[in-house]
């Protein structure tokens, strides 16, 4: 029986791939968009009933790969599959008249396969394959509407994704070599703690996964790419796909062996992101951009705790359950908040108030409002975060609450007299419900104590930053204070402009330089190419002589050297 259940793991990945290939059949695109919710079902089932820590070998696949569901992986897998499912329900309705159904269904399912695969890979090669799927194939989802802004966002996304891929590949190579060529994830993680392993390995992995998870200052792609995608795709990008980066850190950071340097750097960058991103969110004009920055901020919290644990050498068991629960809550809540953006225009009159109320509760929960699921998961994460971390997490309630208020303020206007479509509303409510309820359900299992046993009074007194936030928001609203308008992707704009200016300057300099050598060239920007062409041509004309000459020179050189 157990053997049968573990077959759910390969199925979790293969099933969406099958759906993806079906969408390539001529004329099947719209049909497969309707069937989007089917993709994550085997993954969801696997997260619930597949036995933990039982490897499934896949002989012959890649370098004899395998899959395995760890306890932490199950939480990531379950949360992601649930979000993908409801986002799929939402998308099936939201994109029912979409002009590019084939592309959407194809890449949605492939990214889904990669996303779930990352959480269950047992060896680094499978992991890397799944990571590449989720990372690179999300590009078509980002640029789905083909608007110029989306195309620009897509380019930024792709450039950073490719850089991240290469960083991770080199990091994994170094680490695997350190493990004597082993490719099991556990062996590689153990090798990363060894002093004999190349020190760059850990840094490259942190950078590579940091790009995906929005580690400041590698986050620049995230606030431009997440809002560019269609609403359901934004929801999974921000709720589930960034978690692939977090899970990469969880899987490979050698927790339990102190790595002071790498851990401290990670902690400082991440906690900076926690506050800075939330503040940057305040200057955003679009609701999705606000949410994207909030994701950077919340992932900063997670990575900050990971960095602290890495620096301290905390045992993984003290940290990972709470961390997984936090990301589960964030994924579902953030997914619901994104779906809310698409729902807002359809909610006329009374519906609007209902929507705003649910969104406000979700936002409050993200900020750690007392008695809500968010407060529960945050309190669980404070222990492993150390004294400083716990204080910062407590303070972050203020900035998160402000960002959430900003989100509610810039939510798209409703068109009067419209009622929300049932399927979209259902998906939204189901996700919101799951976000608020699942942490309570799972807490007892993970923390070995009932959620009611936590100090509820402490939760309320610890919520003073929230109170401050409420006062600030009320004050700002009263005096009509407007936040500054900041561009999406903050540092990106200036960097791009500088880069463009530098390129222009370099070209001008090259042109000037070549003009001094040679008058009037037809296409100045290709001078280097043409110069090289010329050199190669000269060589070509006298090839026979040149080759023999080279051989002789080589011979003479060798005889002199030896």
């Amino acid at each position, binding site marked *: 029986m157990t053997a049968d259940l573990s077959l759910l793991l390969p199925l979790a990945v293969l099933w969406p791939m099958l759906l993806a290939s079906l969408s390539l059949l001529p004329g099947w695109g719209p049909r497969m968009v309707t069937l989007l919710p089917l993709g994550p079902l085997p993954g969801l089932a696997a997260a619930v009933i597949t036995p933990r820590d039982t490897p499934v070998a896949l*002989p*012959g*696949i*890649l*370098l*004899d790969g395998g899959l395995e569901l760890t306890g932490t992986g199950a939480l990531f897998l379950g949360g992601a599959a649930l979000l993908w499912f409801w986002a799929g329900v939402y998308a099936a309705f939201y994109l029912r008249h979409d002009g590019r159904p084939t592309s959407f269904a194809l890449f949605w399912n492939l990214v889904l396969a990669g996303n779930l695969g990352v959480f269950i890979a047992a060896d680094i*090669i499978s992991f*890397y*394959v799944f990571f*590449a799927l989720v990372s*690179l194939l999300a590009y078509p989802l980002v*640029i789905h509407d*083909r608007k110029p802004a989306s*195309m620009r966002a897509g380019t930024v996304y*792709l450039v950073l994704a*490719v*850089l991240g*891929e*290469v960083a991770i*590949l*080199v990091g994994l*190579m*170094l680490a*695997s*070599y350190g493990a004597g*060529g082993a490719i099991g994830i556990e062996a590689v993680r153990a090798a990363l703690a060894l002093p004999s392993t*190349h020190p760059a390995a850990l840094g490259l992995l942190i950078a590579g996964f940091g790009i995906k998870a929005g580690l400041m200052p590698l986050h620049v792609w995230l606030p431009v790419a997440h809002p560019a995608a269609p609403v359901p795709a934004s929801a999974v990008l921000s709720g589930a796909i960034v978690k692939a980066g977090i899970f990469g850190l969880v899987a490979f950071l050698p927790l339990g062996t102190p790595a002071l340097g790498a851990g401290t750097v990670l902690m400082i960058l991440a906690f900076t992101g926690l506050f800075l991103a939330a503040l940057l969110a305040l200057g955003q004009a679009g609701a999705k951009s606000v949410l994207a920055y909030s994701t950077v901020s919340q992932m900063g919290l997670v990575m900050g705790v990971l960095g602290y644990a890495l620096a301290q050498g905390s045992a993984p068991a003290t940290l990972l359950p709470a961390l997984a629960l936090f990301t589960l809550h964030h994924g579902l809540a953030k997914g619901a908040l994104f779906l809310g953006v698409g729902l807002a225009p359809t909610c006329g009159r009374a519906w609007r108030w209902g929507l705003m109320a649910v969104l406000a509760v979700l936002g409050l929960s993200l900020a750690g409002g007392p008695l809500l699921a968010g407060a529960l998961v945050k309190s669980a994460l404070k222990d492993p975060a150390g004294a400083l971390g716990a204080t910062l997490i407590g303070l972050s309630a203020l900035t998160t609450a402000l960002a959430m208020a900003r989100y509610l303020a810039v939510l798209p206007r409703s068109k009067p007299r419209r009622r929300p479509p049932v399927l979209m509303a259902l998906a939204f409510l189901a996700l919101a419900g799951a976000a608020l309820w699942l942490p309570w359900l799972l807490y007892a299992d993970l923390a070995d104590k009932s959620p009611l046993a936590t100090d509820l009074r402490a939760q309320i007194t610890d919520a003073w930053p929230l109170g401050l936030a409420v006062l600030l928001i009320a004050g700002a609203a009263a005096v009509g204070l407007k936040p500054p308008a900041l561009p999406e992707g903050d540092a990106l704009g200036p960097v791009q402009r500088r880069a463009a200016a530098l390129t222009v300057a370099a070209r001008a300099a090259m042109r000037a330089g070549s003009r001094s050598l040679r008058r009037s060239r037809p296409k100045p920007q*290709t001078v*280097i*190419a043409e110069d*090289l062409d010329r050199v*190669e041509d000269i*060589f*070509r004309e006298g*090839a*026979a*002589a040149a*080759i*023999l000459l*080279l*051989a002789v020179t*080589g*011979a003479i050189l*060798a*005889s002199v050297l*030896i």
Partner: protein
Amino acid sequence: MMTFAPLLLVFLPLVAAAVSFALPERLSSWRNAANLGVAFTKLLVVAYLLNATEAGLVFEWRYEFLPDNDLVLRLDKLALLFVTLSVFLWLMTTIYAIAYFDRGPNLSRFFGFFNLCVLAATGVAMSGTAITFFLFYELLTLATWPLVAHKGDDKSLRAGRIYLSYTLAGSVAFLAGILWLQSLVGAIEFAAPPDLTGIPALTLTLIFILCIGGLGVKAAIFPLHGWLPEAMAAPAPVSALLHAVAVVKAGAFGIVRMIYDVYGIGTVADLGLGLPLAALASVTILYGSVRALMQTDLKKRLAYSTVSQVSYIILGASLIGPYAVIGGLVHLVHQGIMKITLFMCAGALANRMGIKAIADLDGAGRLMPVTMAAFSVGALGMIGLPPVAGFISKWYLGIGALQSDAAWVVAVLAGSSLLNAAYFLPLLYRAWLLPPPADRPAIRELATTRDRMLILPAAVTALVSLGAGIFASLPFSPLAWVTLIAEGGYLR
């Protein structure tokens, strides 16, 4: 069968060549049938040989050519790796070439030399002695020249002339090298490496430089690569073969033989020749990529990409570590199937829509989706993205470099990946995301003239390059076979 098999592999293409030369142009269907029939038969023979060789049999044919200089055709596992690659890709290219040329002029001549070319490549693979190797290597040079100059226009003739002047000069250097070595140690048999003790290090180094320099011309090592981009004047099926298996691979294969079966890795390491060669290969990898980035012509960009990718094989061979050898040899196969895909697609695009410049690629994905899908698989594989086969090569090369204490090679691989991404991803972007220009034929119009045989070979090789990555650990996958080779003696 034991001695007969290698001869059969040489004899079959000879039959096809004779038939092609003999049949007049108007009997094109007979000629096509003969070519396809022979190609299929060869594939069956190779399938049998793969099974037998895995079971441990070694097929050998020997003939006394000159006193003490036997002609030897020997099918060891390494030879069979190259033979299998060339036979499979030859079948694909034959199908493709028949569709590509349709009823063009001078096809009897073309297919005749085409088959002589496969004969030579198979011979190069199976050669058991240095002299045999040289004979087939030269035959390959001469049989390829009419293919490169096939179109007969000025550009093609110039390309043919340049091709000959490079390769013949290379051959002179190579011949000088092996004759010098033979004068010291007698006939060189790959199965029984010569005893090089007692020969001064300087002499050995000079011979090594002569041989590698000569072979490096065909393998397009920097700065001997100049003929390759020029040979782009050849028709697409020829370019596909040239880049994937015939010429450049013969050079790379020869270098592998020199390092592992003539000198032996111990001697190469003692002489300190591995590192300079690895450095030269790295320079070629980066230089080829940078030059590819500068090209505006699609086939030229692919050509410089070949310059870069073939040096992966040489890099793997020269690093002298178990994983590096595997990475290099497996790339011999992986690069072949991926690059032939790219070239066949480029040829199909030029044939159907007149696309030659990269700027013309806009919207090609919408008009020819299967072709561009195959092209995309090849391109992603070249970048080294999983699960396409190129990733497997890169992984083994990277670990292999670390095993040989050459961490800098990992940086070269990473840089090359980024450069590959920089020159391949914009092509995919144009093809899939930009709208086609107004003067392109409409989809419906294209559909009426579609020739499935022009697209099928590329689709098959694209699927094979995906399969070689995804099922890398199955028996008879390129990786599994190369691992057998490495375990059979190259891991010392």
